[in-house]
């Protein structure tokens, strides 16, 4: 969009353009409109990046905090049942990810995960719940945008603690295997006995999944942990040593 080629700018000039140059002005006009459209598309795409990587985090964190408060409130106010699956089953604490607590809710649909929470799988392989005598608690959360709760999953190393806090128990897991890249079709990683991590017998496992590399959804990143111990929640909700 060069101003001097704009036909309407010429009209403001002291001498009107000679009529012989009119066709060229039409072309110049078309080129300038096309250029402006390109600039507009560029700006919209730029805004979309800002939306994806920043704004969805703002809204998701707000929503996650609201829902977390609801769950905490519900826990403080004794209700029926030890494990309340309606508002969320608990909170995930992974010190290595430096992201505080992540609310864990049922389901891994976009509607659930976009609120900035981690979801446990109901499909294609059903997750176990932390209180089950054996099974694999399989979770998914966003790597970027929408709270980006598993953004730092690549900082986790073998031996790191994964702590799942429910209403009355702290479940302390230890990372024993990491799969840095796998296909999204590899649903075996969330099996109740995750053979790909080397386990052959049923036990109490946890599996975190998200997408990788960052800012894409090309592959999946998987972290497996095994239950090390459990700890009853005391009246002050004193966190286990792993979180101090």
């Amino acid at each position, binding site marked *: 969009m060069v101003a001097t080629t704009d036909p309407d700018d010429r009209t403001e000039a002291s001498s009107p353009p000679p009529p012989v140059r009119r066709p060229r002005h039409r072309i110049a006009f078309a080129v300038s409109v096309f250029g402006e459209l390109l600039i507009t598309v560029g700006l919209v795409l730029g805004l979309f990046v800002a939306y994806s990587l920043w704004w969805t985090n703002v809204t998701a964190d707000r929503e996650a905090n609201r829902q977390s408060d609801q769950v905490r409130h519900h826990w403080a106010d004794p209700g029926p049942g030890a494990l309340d699956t309606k508002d969320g089953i608990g909170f995930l604490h992974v010190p290595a990810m430096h992201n505080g607590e992540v609310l864990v809710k049922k389901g*891994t649909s976009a509607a659930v995960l976009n609120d900035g929470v981690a979801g446990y799988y109901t499909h294609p392989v059903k997750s176990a719940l932390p209180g089950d005598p054996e099974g694999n608690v399989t979770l998914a959360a966003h790597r970027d945008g929408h709270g980006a709760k598993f953004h730092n999953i690549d900082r986790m190393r073998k031996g790191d603690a994964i702590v799942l806090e429910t209403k009355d128990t702290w479940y302390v897991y230890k990372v024993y295997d990491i799969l840095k890249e796998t296909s999204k079709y590899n649903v075996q*990683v969330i099996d109740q006995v995750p053979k790909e991590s080397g386990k052959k017998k049923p036990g109490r496992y946890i599996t975190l999944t998200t997408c990788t590399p960052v800012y894409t959804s090309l592959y*999946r990143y998987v972290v497996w942990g095994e239950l090390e111990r459990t700890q009853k929640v005391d009246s002050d909700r004193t966190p286990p040593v792993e979180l101090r």
Partner: protein
Amino acid sequence: MYGWIWRHLPGNTWVKALISFVLVLAVVYVLFQYVFPWAEPLLPFNDVTVNGSAPWPGSVAAR
């Protein structure tokens, strides 16, 4: 295009600038509130689960 809009805005330069600013804000609002939330699930950037089927959650059909 933008030149056309500018010339059709009423008032002097300051009023035009103010109206333009409000228009830009309105466009950004519509994009963030309606267009992007609609477009995002259609794009393959935010798919985090293993599901062996559709590239986005929501249409996890049986395999």
